[in-house]
């Protein structure tokens, strides 16, 4: 009885594995090596956030602990951000840490964003602290709105070079 169960389970498993391998190969040969979009982790996430977790932990897709609701990381091609997409992706993934740093007026995440945007991080820290409500509360933490408001306050305060 026990053995029968095992055999069935093994058959099921190999069946799934086989199907999956076929799927993968089809995908590969269909797209051709390295062409459009399949390169090194164009971290292509499917429509559901699950896949991104699968792509990142060495781990399970169950027990999900970290996922990103929408897919700005889709802005990667071959694992590298397309130009102009770095800032929105950074804000989306880091918005919680960024809000913390903004409220405190400084921090590693805020400094990282300042560098990406070509701004002075100290000036950016105090500007974002003063405009905390406008950037994070008024926007209801929506990434695109956060970005727009950050751009607005930094340009009004003229703290970014270039």
């Amino acid at each position, binding site marked *: 009885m026990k053995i029968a169960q095992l055999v069935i389970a093994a058959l099921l498993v190999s069946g799934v594995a086989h199907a999956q391998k076929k799927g993968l190969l089809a995908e590969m040969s269909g797209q051709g090596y390295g062409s459009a979009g399949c390169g090194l982790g164009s971290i292509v996430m499917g429509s559901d956030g699950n896949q991104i977790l699968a792509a990142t932990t060495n781990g399970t897709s169950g027990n999900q*602990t970290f996922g990103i609701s929408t897919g700005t990381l889709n802005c990667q091609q*071959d694992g590298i951000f397309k130009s102009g997409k770095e800032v929105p992706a950074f804000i989306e993934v880091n918005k919680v840490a960024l809000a913390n740093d903004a409220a405190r007026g400084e921090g590693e995440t805020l400094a990282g964003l300042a*560098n990406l945007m070509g701004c002075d991080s100290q000036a950016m820290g105090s500007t974002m602290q003063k405009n905390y409500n406008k950037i994070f509360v008024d926007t209801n933490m929506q990434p695109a709105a956060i970005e727009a408001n950050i751009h607005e306050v930094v340009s009004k305060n003229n703290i970014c070079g270039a």
Partner: protein
Amino acid sequence: MNFRAVLILLTLIPLFSPASTDSINGIMREVETRQLSQERQWLKLLHFEKDFFQSRQSQMDSPLFFLSQDGKKNPQAELLATIQAFFAPVAGMDVNDHPQCRFPARYRWLKNQLKDMALSWPDVDCPRFKAFFEGIRGESVSLVFSSYYLNNPSSAFGHTFLRINKAASLRDGKRYELLDYGINYAAETDTNNAFLYGFKGLFGLFPGKFRSIPYYYKVREYNNAESRDLWEYELSLPQSSVDMLIAHIWEVGPLATDYWYLTENCSYHMLSVLEAADPSVQILDKLDQFVIPADTVRVLWNKTELIKSYSFRPSVRQVYLERWRLLSAEEREELEALAEQLRTRDEITYSQNFLTKDPVSQARILDTFIDYVDFRYSQQVQEAGREEQLKLRVLAKRSENPVAPEAVVIIPKLEEQPHLAHPSGRWGVGALKQLGDDETSILFSHRFALHDRLDPSWGYPKASQISFLDMDFSSGKKLEIENISAFELVSAGAWSRLIPENSWRFKLGVERTRNENFQPTHEGIVRLGSGWTLQKGHFDFSAQLLGEVHYGPHLPHDKLWGGVGPYLEAHFEVNPFWLMQAHIFYRRDSYVGVQDYLRTGIESQWSFTKNLGIRLQYRNERFLERTSLQLFKYY
């Protein structure tokens, strides 16, 4: 004329000149004379390794990785086919599909090997590879170890990935680690079914893929969402090897390779790409057959000169605990009041006490509270749940206070550093005496991985046990299984008012015990329990409720039965090399009506070094009393 046309023209000119055929033939001859196909780096670039049966072939499974039909088995054929392919005309294809663009590391290697010959190389311009290479802007490489995570079985052994460190910012000369790219190798899983997951993971049925992911994403995932510490080991690699690494990652990037949970796993392939990038890196042959992430870090530290420096990136839990330590007693009271409101109210109000404090003190309290919420309610924080909404209002309060946050610098003690841990495999030999047996029997044991709470505690989380395939055998009159723990997990995280977490334990395995006729019997067992652990210094005490299901094929009555009861355990660390614990367990069984069971046990291990220890165990249970003494060797 468009760019592509120019490109095609440029590459066509040398191709159809007689010089190019001469070049190919010259190179072919030279490659034969120098036996380049047997060069270590060529073999490493193709991922040739001896397999379990000692036959040598490439570990890459995708046919797309090979230009020769024989490539997986024949490095010579692959080299010749590669050379041919490098000289292929670009016309009629997307230039990015040209073999030079697909295999830039091979191309670099070949040119470098033959740099003493005056050859005309038909360099192809590869826009997408170039964008990748320049986007990564790698100057150095770190191996990052993400610490153990019991809540996710596949992460219980930790995880490693590479971080390609960018050059300092051109604007201000500073490094921004968050903006680096990480290179991760992981299984692309497709099931939530634990059985399928384990089975497919163990037998290489998941496809493994390399991914380039911004480091900030990994930091948010590990440090924040899962509260795991990150250890970053910077490797001493010359720029040329860093460039080779990036080029090689490009080669393997688009492929899927069978992911083997215990052998060709995340940690293994981080090292295999390093070996491909730099022939002087030799580490795979220093590893065991089975690759445990923490072991790779330890081996790198102990057996190579590769680690230049290391740094520690604490989890949000550690940051919170450190901030809490820095608070005064009064400030802690305020913090608790805030935490209480967070639990019970829909609005945070600040007490008179808080409002009369100076801004420095207020900032300290709020900063601690912010990290507390992020740690304690990480799920709700990600999902913008109730706690996150309340926290955002606290942040608004914090933003009115211009005092800079206190810098949190955590320098882990030596005994907390994972590269200084004991090896994860363990052999044991000793003696076992059971009441009723005339003779003492010999005890052998072997544990595949990783750590229990009596092993030397250096480098492992002190409150955890992760045993995988721990087997004890005794040899008296005949060879007997004494105990098998396929999996045994213990999490004895301490309860506190602010962090009211549960401790728990789980075991799946086989135990040898005695039945009511005092006859030895083997029982398959699943044990699960949960409760609380209180900690005071080096002492902790757990009270848990355990439930067990037993299956004993040779039991005289019920073969399948269950039991449940309270379990108390005390654990004491005299020092990291001398630990002891004692337990008492009462269980009410369903076996033949209802029976009572009581077990007490005490055990202690004293370790001479991180690799050698001696353990004494005594256990007294219904129908059985046993004492054992074992010498453990960690390897």
